[in-house]
C-alpha cells in the first residue's frame, strides 16, 4: 500500500445503485424517475417511493442545483479527511428536485451560502470510483 492510495470511504454499489455510480464514472449525474407517476428520487431504490411502481428510468440531470444546507467541518470525521480540514459538507438540491449529500469545492468555505447556485463536478478518486461534488456556478 502506498501513501498516495485513496484512504477515504468509497461507495460500494448495490444492484440497484450500480447504474448511478456507473454514470458518475462517465461524468453524468442521474436520478431515478418513475415512468408511472414522474416522481424523481435519490438515492436509488428498487421502486418508486411515491407510487411503488417498479418501472424506473434514469434521468440525466443538468448538474445544476442550489445549496440547501451546509457546514464547514473543522474536525476530521476520520484520519483520512484530516488533510482536507476545513472542508464543506453540504446538502445540494438538484434542479430536478432530489437532494444529495456532497462537498462544495472550488471556493473558500467562507464563500458558501444557503441558496448558492452550484454546478456538479466529477472527481475520479480511483480508477473505479467517481464522486460527485459541486462548485459555485459561474
Amino acid at each position: 500500500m502506498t501513501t498516495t492510495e485513496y484512504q477515504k470511504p468509497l461507495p460500494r454499489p448495490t444492484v440497484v445503485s450500480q447504474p448511478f455510480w456507473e454514470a458518475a464514472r462517465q461524468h453524468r449525474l442521474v436520478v431515478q424517475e418513475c415512468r408511472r407517476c414522474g416522481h424523481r428520487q435519490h438515492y436509488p431504490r428498487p421502486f418508486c417511493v411515491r407510487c411503488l411502481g417498479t418501472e424506473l428510468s434514469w434521468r440525466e440531470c443538468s448538474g445544476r442545483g442550489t445549496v440547501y444546507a451546509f457546514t464547514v467541518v473543522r474536525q476530521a470525521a476520520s484520519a483520512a479527511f484530516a488533510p482536507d480540514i476545513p472542508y464543506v459538507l453540504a446538502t445540494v438540491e438538484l434542479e430536478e428536485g432530489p437532494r444529495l449529500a456532497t462537498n462544495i469545492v472550488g471556493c473558500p468555505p467562507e464563500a458558501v451560502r444557503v441558496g448558492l447556485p452550484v454546478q456538479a463536478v466529477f472527481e475520479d478518486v480511483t480508477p473505479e470510483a467517481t464522486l460527485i461534488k459541486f462548485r459555485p456556478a459561474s
Partner: protein
Amino acid sequence: MTLRKAAAIAGIGELKPMRQSDGRSALHLMAEAGRLAILDAGMTPGEVDGLLVAPPLQGVPVTFPSIVAEYLGLQPSYCDIVDLGGASGAGQVWRAAAAIQAGMCHTVLCLTGDAQDPQTFYQRGATVWGLPAPEFDRPYGPMGANSGYAMAASRHMALYGTTSRQLAKIAVDQRTNACANPDALFYGKPITVDDVLNSRLVVDPLHLLEIVMPCSGAAAVLVTSPERARQAPHPPVLLLGAGEKVTHAAPYYAPDLTCTGIAAAARQAFTMAGVTPQDIDLVSVYDCYTITVAITLEDAGFCAKGQAGPFVEEHDLTWKGDFPVNTHGGQLSFGQPGLAGGMSHVTEAVRQLRGEAHGRQVKNCELAYVNGNGGVLSEEVSLILARG
C-alpha cells in the same frame, strides 16, 4: 382511542452520568437504573410484567430484550426493543401505556443506557454494505450527527436570521440549571455567552459548548396503571398525551430540515392531552445541540417558526425563570449517556411534577412537555405529563 390517563409513571431510576464506566458494561448500568426505578416505585421484580429496552450505542445482539430481562430477573409478558435513537425513552413511555391499556401487561420497565468505557467501546459507523449512509454520505466526510445538526443550524440562520449569540443563550441557561443539579456532569462550572462563542468551532456554525458530551450512565422509568401508581411511595405522574413522527433517517433527505416532525408529534400530544403550549409549566426537550432546542420550541408551538432566537433571548430558561427549559441541565450540561440522554428529559419532568427537584424546583409545576428526538431531527416523540 386515546392514551390520555391510560398510564402513569410510578418510579424513576437514573445513574449520575460518568465520563467512563469503570469497567461496567452498558447492560450492567442499565440493570442498575432498572433496579432503582423498581425500588422507587416500591415494587418488586415479580410485579414487573413488561420490559422495553433501548439499544446501547455500542450495538446490540439479537434478542437483546430477553437478555436484559434475564439479567434483571424478569419474566415479562411484553418484551421489546425500541430504537428511535434519542427519542427511544419517550417512545418507550407511550408504548408502555398502550400495552397496559391493551391489557397485555400492567407494569412496564422502560430502560436506556450506555457505557463509554474504552474496553467496551465499539467503533460505530463501520461501513455496512447495502445501507444508504455508507454508500451515499460517508464518502463526503460527514462528522456523525454533528454535521447534520450544523446543516440544520446554518439553514435556520439563513432563513430566519438566527444568531450564534441567541443559540449560545440556550447552552448558558441550561448550564445555570446544571449548576443547581449536583448529578450533572458540568455541575459547578458556569459559563457565559462569550464562553460559548469563544469555544472552538467544530462544525460551522456550532461551537464546542453547543455540542453534547457523550458519557456513560443509564436511566429507567416504571410505567404502570394509574391505580397501581397511586399505591406507590411517590406522587404519580400521569401520561396525558403522546405523539410520534419519523420523517427521515439522514439529514440530506429530510422533507424540511428546519420544519420538523416535532410539529406533528407535538400537535398529536397536545390534542390528546386537551391542553395547549400556554398551559405548560416545564419544557423538557431533547438538546443534543442548541439548535435542537430552538427548532423544538418553534415546532412544538411555544413560539412562531423562525422566532426561537428572539424568544430565548427574551425569556429566562433557568429553573427559576419565566420559561423553564431542561432544568436538570439538559444533555448539554447533564451529559448524554447514549440513549439515556433522551430519557433524562422524562426523569427530570417526573421529578419536577412530583415536586422533588431539590434545589431547582420549578414553582407550581403541574404540566410538562417532553420531546425526544433521534437521528438528525429524524425521529420525534412528544409527551404531555401531569402531576397525578
